[in-house]
């Protein structure tokens, strides 16, 4: 499985995720959250930023179900789902991830026919990979 190829701007996100925290970058001056992380604020041009804790609640904005040809580790699990989740506190912050049956479960652990756009989800963390995952609020 591919691990994130992390750059300086994105590193804090992955460090917090490995600790089981979902945080997004926000401007320390004007307060606007932004994603993906970047060196300065596109609203006020400040270079001061903070990492704001999120509740981990969100809704499915869209999803796909990839089938082969895929990279071998992914082909083994296909068909699986990939979702885009809008965060409850910041609807313009949308995270790509996988909707799974429970924390640490495989990409294909939730049948694709259980997924609906608009479904309420919350974040969990895969302890092995350190990646955030998503589970249905009502399963």
């Amino acid at each position, binding site marked *: 499985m591919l691990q994130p190829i*992390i750059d300086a701007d994105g590193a804090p996100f992955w460090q917090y995720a490995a600790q089981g925290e979902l945080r997004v970058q926000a401007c320390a001056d004007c307060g606007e959250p932004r994603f*993906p992380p970047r060196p300065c604020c596109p609203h006020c041009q400040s270079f001061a930023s903070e990492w704001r804790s999120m509740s981990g609640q969100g809704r499915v904005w869209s999803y796909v*179900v990839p*089938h082969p040809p*895929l990279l071998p580790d992914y082909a083994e699990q296909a068909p699986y789902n990939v979702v885009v989740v809008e965060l409850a506190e910041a609807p313009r912050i949308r995270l*790509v991830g996988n909707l799974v049956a429970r924390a640490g479960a495989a990409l294909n652990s939730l049948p694709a026919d259980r997924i609906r756009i608009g479904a309420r989800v919350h974040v969990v963390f895969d302890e092995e990979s350190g990646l955030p995952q998503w589970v249905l609020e009502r399963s």
Partner: protein
Amino acid sequence: MAGLKDATAIVGIGQTPFAKRLPEDERTLACRAVLAALDDAGIAPGEVDALASFTMEETDEVELAKAVGFGDLTFFSKVGFGGGGSCATVAHLAAAIASGQASVGVAWRSRKRGSGPRPWTNTAVQLPTPGQWTRPFGLLRPADEIAMLARRHMHEYGTTRDHLFNVALACRNRANQNPAALMYDRPLTREMYMTSRWISEPLCLFDNCLETDGALACVVVSRERARDCRRPPVYVHSAAQGLPAQHHGMVNYWNDDPLTGPAWTAARHLWKHADLTPEDVDVAQIYDAFTPLIPLSLEGYGFCGRGEGGAFTEGGALEIGGRLPINTGGGGLSEAYVHGFNLINEGVKQLRGTSTAQVPGAATCLVTAGEGVPTSALLLRS
């Protein structure tokens, strides 16, 4: 300000055969396409002083120039973002020629995407920054990235698989008229489409472009010079690039409104500098790496309202005789996928009256580049 309007013209086009595998390498194919385009124009290679291509083009200016015998080059540029750069190559040449930086420009693309590797299988070289936010989760391929937008478009606007089939069918029908098209002798039916294998739900096999070996080129000169060339000039009436504020590339999931992409930005500039409106366009060549790019582009370039791109395809609208015939050589879906360069050359053929699926009396043609990525577009007229 004089601007670009009709200041330059495409006077030559050239192409190699298209195939899943061609024996020659990309450099040789590039040379063949460029020389064919210059021969079509009636211009000697020694007169060429400007070049434009894609950053993904593997044959660089030095190799091409010394192989085919160009003169001294005074302008050369390369445009990024894969298929989003196709029309911009012509736009850069038009700007260079209109501003006196050069007099004879060649744009080209040579690619062995049919027999060569699929870019997304390369795990060492990633697209800049966005890769870390998407690829670990299995959003691996451009098809997956666009399928995400397609699903949302279906949800918000009622776009259906039948609408996407209309796109695939129009391209295939035109390819069935074009002996140079890879899918010339392969008709498509609704049953074939609806029962084909998934690639990334909601997209199936026929929603994806071909994988092709081939090369194409075109020649751009000033309107004055164009009068002396071998073929009727096809004028660059308007040209635009588009990279919207807060845009994120193909994975444009992180701005206010992901369903309005670069096409909308390019379109505003394109129409602002044109004497034409979308209603005046006789035929369009719309970048079709994936079928959902057509409804998104139809909305972006103003052929219909927001969310109406799916419905626009109904009733044979995209076929010859319909409201807006598209991709009349078969497009990337059914002629060849060479980063959209075949769409430029097909636009020229339509305005010369020499297309294999000629729109009667076509005098204006919109050509677009990849939507989703930072893009470009040309409005051509005869």
